[in-house]
């Protein structure tokens, strides 16, 4: 429920971009997918997810379309835009640099 901190927010953006980079997904699927892949270690609350999705959409990194799911219900599917794919690459590179750096510090310092 609490407002995500900047770090988490940035990380969540990265997770969302990664998750939909394989194909369009709706919000619930994105949350589920992150939970499954992380072995339930990362719980994405709706309070964090939807504001993040709306922000990414506003920034033009992702776009949304209403489509039918397999069960025939209308859902809002998010997918990467071309600019979003480039942004994803940048954020990924940045994340790797950051996590490497933190890893080095934790192991060596």
């Amino acid at each position, binding site marked *: 429920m609490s407002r995500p901190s900047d770090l988490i927010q940035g990380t969540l953006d990265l997770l969302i971009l990664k998750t939909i980079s394989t194909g369009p997904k709706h919000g*619930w699927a994105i949350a589920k997918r992150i939970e499954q892949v992380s072995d339930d270690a990362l719980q994405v609350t*709706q309070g964090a997810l939807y504001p993040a999705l709306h922000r990414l959409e*506003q920034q033009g990194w992702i776009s949304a379309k209403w489509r039918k799911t397999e069960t025939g219900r209308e859902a809002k599917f998010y997918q990467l835009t071309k600019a979003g794919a480039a942004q994803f690459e940048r954020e990924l590179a940045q994340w790797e640099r950051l996590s490497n750096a933190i890893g080095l510090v934790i192991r060596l310092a």
Partner: protein
Amino acid sequence: MTHFAKNRSLALREFWSRLGMKTRRWLGVLWMRARSVFRSSSVERELEKELSFHLDQEIEEGRARGLSLDEARWTALRKLGGISQIQEECRDMRRTDFLENLTRDLRYAARMLAHSPGFTLVMVLTLALSIGATSAIVSVIEGVLLRPLPYRDPARLVRVFTSSTQFPKFPMNPNDFRDFRARLHSFESFAAYTRSDLQLSGTGEAIRLSGFSVTAGFFNVLGLNPAMGREFERNDELPGRGHVAIVSDKVWRTRMGARRDVLGQRILLNAEPYTVVGVMPPGVQHPGNMYHAVMYGDTVDIWTPFTFTNPQNRGEHYLDGIARLRPGVNAAQAQNEMNAAMQQLAKEHPDGDSGWDVLVIPEHTELVGRSQRLLLVLLGAVALVLLLACVNAANLLLARATARQRELSVRAAVGASRPRLIQQLLTESVLLAAMGAVLGAALAMAGVKALVALLPADFPRASDIHVDAPVFLFTLAVAAGTGLFFGMVPALHGSRTDLREPLHEGGRSAMSSRGTLRLRSSLVISEVTLACVLLIGAALMLRSFVNLLKADPGFRPEQTVTANISLPEANYKDGKARTRFYEGLLDKLGSVPGVIAVGASSDLPWTGWDDNAGGMKIPGEEPPPHQFFHARYHAATPGYFRALGIPMLRGREFDDHDTADSQKVFIINEAMARFWQHSDALGRRLTFEDHPKEKDWMTIVGIVGDVKDAPKNAAAEPGFWWPMSQGPLSDFSIAIRSNLEPKVVADHLRAAAGELDPNLAVSDIRTMKEVAAGAYATSRFALLLVALFAALALVLAAIGTYGVIAYSVNQRIHEFGVRMALGARPSDVVRSVLINGMKLALAGTLLGTVLGLALSRLLGNLLYEVSPADPVAIGATCVITIVVAALACYVPALRATRANPMTALRAD
């Protein structure tokens, strides 16, 4: 195709594709924002649909895990958390919240304001008055002080004067001017000019034109060009060549039919033919002058060449100098160079030129310098009013914010963040300020017109004052600034909601009332302080004005009508002709029934006459060291002093026995009588000649009371009058004291003058009261405005005090109810409320007095015979402030006595 080229085309393609990607992204972003703003309801619906889809998925998942429908729904809801909070955050994320919230806040604010029309009305009116007053004063300052003068590169224009110990600022001598012009390097160009009014006849009714004779290149110095023809050249300055004229656009249109072939035409000026060589474009502004001053503005009708007729004279000073500095030279450097030249001239002409310095003053300073203090004082006063209005608005808003605490808490509880609450509260205050500004701008438009009408006639650049775009922008900025400023404190205060407190305690007395009350009390104290400062200023101005009116002017302006007459030299070639005219005129007027006294003279009191005669010799008396006897010279006919009510202290008036052939006589004023340190002036003689013959002596036959040059001057200048019969003037003033209506007197005057000379113009017909009022105008103007601002401030402070006391009474109403129920008398309750209010009022008054004492010094020469620490003014201010504050407290105090214990208890 080479490898390089191929590479380049690849790079280009990538560049284009990246550019396209970026552009598409930005177009998408714009579309999203536009959609969020303009189709907000459909966006909101989608968000709801999206969230409910998520909820359903969660429920289905729970069912799949084997939960019952209810259990699954419950788990899902718990996991989801506050839907409205998510919605609010999503809205935040859409970033367009600014615009979108603004429209929502505006709509909301408008509704809230419409709900409490009394509050809104008070807020808007007080803000409109103060913003309007500020804009009006800023318009005046912009027009007078800030707007560049309408000449080419006006910053380089300077005025040139001479200066001696006796005459600190004096016109120039023509021959000195000519030498300066030939020798100086600091000036790109240098010209001189002197008043020379002319009578235009031959085309319709004769009129007197306001004219100047100017040296060659006068307009070039100003950077102005004639619309037609040429300006004067050096040749025109030669004696005998000067019968050419340049006319103003106004004269060209009204008297010459705006004819294009006017150049080279002859016109009759002072009954002599002049050739028109130039026509100036409309809007030529006279740069102002010192000797026989004509004020700055579109005030001059005609220009003629100045001719150097007397090459030996170094003693006459009557030219105003104006020059254009070379680029990079400043006024001080030019003054140094001129003083060096002056010293050289003093060596060459020790008689006339020793003892003189030169003053070089920037044109802008010379024009508006003397009104600067008045305007800055008014700006200060109006800024205090605006500040006070802001504090007052903050105070009222704070009261409202406190009353709305519950509403704000509810909004915070359902997910409004603090910045959102602040934004909403600020929207309300800016909306108030904006409404105030719109009304204020309208008030400013009207106010500026009224201000200009009220301005003293001699106020510089009055015609340049109007509300224009920069002033309007300033008003907008002030409104936005005040809105934020007075809204900020209540917004920060009001938004600091603890979610639980007000909702829990619910009652209106709950919310941190102590802190709010302290904040509001300090606001009230500052309001009273500001009002007190303004009141002290107004009281001092009022005292000055009363002193000014009480001071004996030295003449009786009531019942006297005055006018100016100018006899053209061509028709009145000698003294006899002039004497015949004015004696005839005075006889005719004197025989009109109801006329008490009538006379003519060189000038009228308080009209700026400053002509001096110096170098007189008085047997047995010596002037102070390094000085010489000098006095204002005037001429008068019999009856003049009676017509103006100037008392004849001793001796006699002029009479019919004083003729051109009789013994030369003088009447002097008291100030001049003091020249005779060792004996009584009456009956003594003086002369202007070094080797006087018997006819060169003047005998003092009378002493009249002093009349100062202007009402605020410290003392009268020494002055003497000769009988008009012994030195008839061609320009003179008429004064007629009578029991008749001024209009009737004016008709008689015109008729009498017309009978004697149908081609003569009688100008400036005014009552002496109007002349005197003109001399008081600046003081009256300053007093009126400062008093107006002080009254406004007092009302604002009263509203503020009332607001806070009423608020605290409301807070304590239940306490009062209980006390009354327990037997407290109404007077006890009233006293307790009054004491509360009076504490604030006294603190404010004390602070205001201290601040007022510190600031009243800035009034400087706006005060007249009043110390800036005048105890009467300060005492009166304190009494007024405290009485008004007491009244403002009394109304809520009465309400406290009507507190009903039952209602009070129930209300909580």
